[in-house]
């Protein structure tokens, strides 16, 4: 009997225990939090350019009674580790006029602040200045110091807007402070030939490495690669092509910072010859980058002829604008009418297949065409006695611009194959007159090479 009672009791107590199993403890099933991400409610009342105006020797505090917000678009990315504790923003997704680096202890910002992401930055109370020459926002110090992670989280607000950033295409000669902290693009650039087999950075250590990038005119800029970058062990590509990067500077030396190797698209053919022109062989190139520039700085290069045939002083000058050098000619102010000047290249033997001529031109203050293009095979130093063939109509030369264009106009490929295996001289003839046709021409990147 007792046993039966016990059975009943034990059944009851089992029921009791089982009921105890429902006593809850958090289980693993957590639902994904619902995020409603609202656009930050801020009034943009400041710009990156405003901030840059405050840059001076030591960091300057941005003071304001009201909260000051600027907006910008992210161009850097620390995903691959080439950027570290820096967020770079520019003021517009396209044709930016200013950019700045936000200096912080925050890491791995790319998840929220990827390239193209619009951000609002509260700047009052921050310091603006430079770090090793690079305009930066951050904390006070001898130079701009990093702001804490908390400060960054509070001040840098993520917009729901994301834009495609269009890198500004410039030549290496045009690299200047005005492009700092913005996304730029070079076309037709490459790593030096002797880099074959090198990696972006050293596999065996964590030091940053400088790599040179060059264009086909032997202009160079440093590419700085972090020793912590994911791609540091990857081989440098050996081709030629476009390079997108954020322009930075370190103690007076410009540096290019790529976000990832996708920024390096060097799949094309390398520049045909990396040695400077001198021996009259193809390819021939001149971009005047090594020549002194300025008023009265007449083109004076080995093998070249630069002559005023109307009796005056004025010849083709080398000028510089926005970091780019080119040659320029105009009759304006010569007090000569007519005014005639010739710029003749050294002789180039067209010993490669499909020889072509290319150059870039800009016209300004236009009041009539004045520039013509000529070729000769018997030029001996005197332009007046040589036999010249006018090939102006084969070239695209801009016309009619009273204001300066942003970009040079490429001439297009001028076929020289009928002169194959002959030594040719190319002449730019300017014929105008003061108080008459005084159109100004700028000419750059003169090339004679094998066409496709």
């Amino acid at each position, binding site marked *: 009997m*007792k*046993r039966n*009672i*016990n059975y009943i*009791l*034990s059944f009851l*107590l*089992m029921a*009791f*225990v*089982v009921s*105890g*199993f429902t*006593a*809850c*403890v*958090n*289980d*693993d099933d*957590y*639902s*994904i*939090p619902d*995020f409603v991400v609202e656009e930050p409610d801020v009034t943009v009342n400041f710009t990156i350019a405003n901030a840059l105006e405050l840059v001076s020797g030591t960091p300057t505090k941005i003071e304001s009674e009201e909260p000051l917000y600027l907006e910008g678009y992210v161009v850097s990315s620390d*995903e691959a*580790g080439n950027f570290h504790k820096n967020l770079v923003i520019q003021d517009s997704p396209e044709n930016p006029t200013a950019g700045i680096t936000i200096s912080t*202890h*925050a*890491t*791995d910002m*790319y*998840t*929220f602040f*990827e390239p193209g992401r619009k951000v609002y930055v509260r700047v009052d109370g921050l310091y603006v200045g430079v770090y090793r020459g690079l305009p930066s926002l951050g904390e006070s*110090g001898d130079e701009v*110091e990093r702001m*804490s*992670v*908390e*400060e960054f989280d509070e001040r840098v607000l*993520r917009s729901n807007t994301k834009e495609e950033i269009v890198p500004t295409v410039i030549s290496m000669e045009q690299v200047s402070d005005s492009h700092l902290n913005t996304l730029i693009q070079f076309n037709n650039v490459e790593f030096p030939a002797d880099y074959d087999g090198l990696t972006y950075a050293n*596999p*065996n*250590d*964590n*030091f940053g490495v400088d790599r040179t990038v060059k264009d086909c005119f032997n202009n160079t800029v440093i590419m700085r690669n972090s020793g912590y970058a*994911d791609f*540091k*062990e*990857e081989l440098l590509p050996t081709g030629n092509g476009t390079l997108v990067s954020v322009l930075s500077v370190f103690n007076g030396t410009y540096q290019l910072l790529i976000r990832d190797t996708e920024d390096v698209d060097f799949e094309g053919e390398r520049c045909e010859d990396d040695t400077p022109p001198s021996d009259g062989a193809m390819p021939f190139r001149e971009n005047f980058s090594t020549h002194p520039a300025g008023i009265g700085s007449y083109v004076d290069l080995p093998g070249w002829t630069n002559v005023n045939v109307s009796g005056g002083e004025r010849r083709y000058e080398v000028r510089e604008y926005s970091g780019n050098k080119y040659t320029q000619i105009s009759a304006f102010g010569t007090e000569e009418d007519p005014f005639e000047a010739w710029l003749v290249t050294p002789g180039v033997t067209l010993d490669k297949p499909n020889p072509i001529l290319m150059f870039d031109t800009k016209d300004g203050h236009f009041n009539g065409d004045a520039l013509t293009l000529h070729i000769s095979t018997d030029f001996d130093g005197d332009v007046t006695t040589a036999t010249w063939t006018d090939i102006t109509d084969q070239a695209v030369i801009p016309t009619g611009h009273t204001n300066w264009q942003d970009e040079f106009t490429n001439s297009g490929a001028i076929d020289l194959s009928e002169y194959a295996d002959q030594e040719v001289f190319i002449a730019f003839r300017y014929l105008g007159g003061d108080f008459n046709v005084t159109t100004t021409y700028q000419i750059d990147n003169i090339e004679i090479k094998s066409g496709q």
Partner: protein
Amino acid sequence: MIRNYLITLCFSVAFISLSMAQQTIVRAKVMERATNEAVVDVNVFIENTNLAQTTDVNGEFMFSGDRLPLGEGVLVLSKTGFETQYLPIVINEGRELDLATIYLQPEVSSYTSDAGIISLSDEELDQEDGSASNISGLLQSSKDAFLQAAAFDFSATFFNPRGYDSEYGKVLINGIQMNKMFNGRPQWSNWGGLNDATRNQIFSMGLSANDYNFGGLAGSTNIIMRASQYREGGRINYASANASYTGRVMASYNTGLMPNGWAVSVLASRRFADEGYRDAALYDANSFFAAIERKISDKHSLNLTAFFTPNRRGKTSPNTQEVYDLKNTRYNAYWGYQDGEKRNSRIRELEEPVIMLNHYWDFDETTSLNTNIAYQFGTRGDSRLGYDNAPNPDPTYYQKLPSFFLGDPNGPNYDQAEAATINFQEDGQIDWNRMYYTNMAYGGTSRYYLYEDRSDDKQLSANAIFHKRLDNITLNVAVNYRKLKSHNFANMLDLLAGNGYLDVDSYNYGDRAQSDLNNPDRVVDVGDTFKYNFNLNAEQYDAFVQAQFKYRKVDFYLGAEVGGTNYQRDGLYRNGAFEDNSFGKSKKLDFTTFGFKGGMTYKITGRHLLDLNTAYYTQAPTLRNSFSNSRQNNETVKGITEEKIQNVDLSYIFRSPRVKGRLTGFYTKIEDASEISFFYADGISGLGRNSTTAFVQEVLTGVDKQHIGLEAGVEAQITPTIKLKGAAALGQYTYSNNPDLYLTSDDFEQEVNFGESYLKNYKVAGGPQRAYQIGAEYRDPNFWWVGATANFFSNAYVDVAPISRTRNFYMDGSGYPFADYDEDIARDLLKQERFDSYMLVNLIGGKSWRINNYFVGVFASINNIFNQKYKTGGFEQGRNANYKTLSEDVNKEKRVFGPKYWYGNGTTYYVNVYFRF
């Protein structure tokens, strides 16, 4: 208790007043005090003889015959679950000594084994993150005053008797060893919550004679979980506490051995807590046990026992002192709020059921053979957060704490330190929402994810234990075999709203970053295996023989063991960093072990005894310490060999009806041990590369340790109701040589050998090396009792970083000594931290009632009533491996990479109510 004395008096009277029988006889009936029911199967023997009896169904026993020792003697009555009685008797020739009724009472420990659980949660028992291990579970059945103190009052401090790690204590269930082959330690959680089913325990201290196996330095416990061994009846408990769990319900029923030859036992329990003493230390454990036994004949009995204790527990973080100072000692860095609930990122989930079949074969009264086979299988998972190319989610990450800003190389940045202080104090937990948000904002593969380190084990154990008792000699023979297949891998638990996870190591480059070159660039989903994947296969077999001799003046024993162990890793991934040495089988490690032990008990008189134990044995290193980097490659530890252990201890034991005491001196030497640890090191020289930082595996080989000390325990029955007790342990556990140290890492190609690590004379970490207790107990005749103990602890030490004690310490990256190296400063930097000493006061009490045939009881305890704060352990961070980095860190206003500590619980309570029928 008064009755005991009356009884004793009665004996004397009985003896004086004599009986008229011609034969010399000793007889009595044994009853349980509370119930007045006869107690069967009580072992009764007369000390210093081999005369032994058990009580019959009426609780009666009788000794008779010529061989009864005449004169003064001691009659010993013992049964599991009852307090052992020692009765002085005088046997006269030709007289009958009728002791009438002897009352037994349930032993204190069967109450206090509940108490033990409060001060020591399973988590503490299973602690692996630190050096601490706890062994007190082993001691709970011991009746020795010192070991009782160690089990119940010292355990919260991670005090280990004689300083032995729990891998040196053996736990058997029905004769089968339960210590894990992976780390040698018993996995207490595998039978946690089965308290009422694990009360029958037979404990052998140290390496003393033991009927089942060779034993271990720290002792050996056999938990008997046979259905026929449980007392008929049911029991139901409810406990409330605030230490590791907040509630426990437990119910059990045992039929006892029924007339039809069957016995059945079942138990189910649940323990739960949303959080324990430490924040977010959740506890979710269900336990089930069933055993069925069939007594086939007088000679054969077959038992089937199975238990399953699925449990989930939230782990707690060790923290630097800075963190504890900013928060408090309950602080746990592993959790954060999600959906308004505390979500712990580090959960241990254990589901390892055991099923065993036991055959008991009694050839005759003196000969038995016990054959067992057991199978354990299941899973163990330890969850943690992973993050790739995303900020460390650890709220105590050093760059988030004030010390980081105060230690700015450009001078203290007080503003940012203040901001960090406020931020940490107001929040300072894991930000789950931000992790989800990061993954969602990024939109690609998960930057943050939750995964678990899994070990899925399958273990088969079989053994046979033979027992033969001759007149003065008991012979024990046992053979054991174990085979383990352990599948280890990382398992994705939660992608936290990311789109898969790209299984590429973000800290490595190119092919080396691939976890499996056979299947590179995998994107894994929840439930997929990733990071690492391998099997460990282990096999162990041994044979043990022992003879115990019992004589009037002296008992002694001799034992020997021989065995073999082999281990092999089988890589299932071809790790990119170890292309040629990760996929497929490793070389097979083979270890041969043997051991001898012997000891004696010399009885100066019945009251004064000397006890000596000596042993020399070897044991295989654990699986854990055999492969230097098992997650990534097949490399075995260089120069790995068997551990050699020698031990001698000598005790003086005093035993009178009122006072029991023991004083033991011991000396143990452990040689050729190996230890592996993992950490991120900064300041490692001689890597043949410019970087001095790396995630490394640190391998120590040829480690020698020496444990010497004294321990003492005494208890005195001052009055029939008042008992005083005292215990003391004075130990010195030190490294006794300078072991070899080398590092391996996927950051460098070859292991880097640093030669000797100058550890000699450093203290072995893990609990206080000195502990003292005084206590008193009052046991009222009206079935209630109270007790109090004051416990004093000192000489606990931090676990030192061996890498800082190598030549690397004074060398710069190029391998030359630092220019500004100052030996005095260095000595100061490397001084081992000794934790502050402290006192813990514990109270316990209980009462029971009898209502008809039912019993109701309540047991309560309050531990650490003065809310003393104390460190239970800690370790130096291996990060600052050299003089320059360490001295820079130490000289900061607040250390950035100071040691991490665990703190003990503050005041905790435990109340248990039970109902027995």
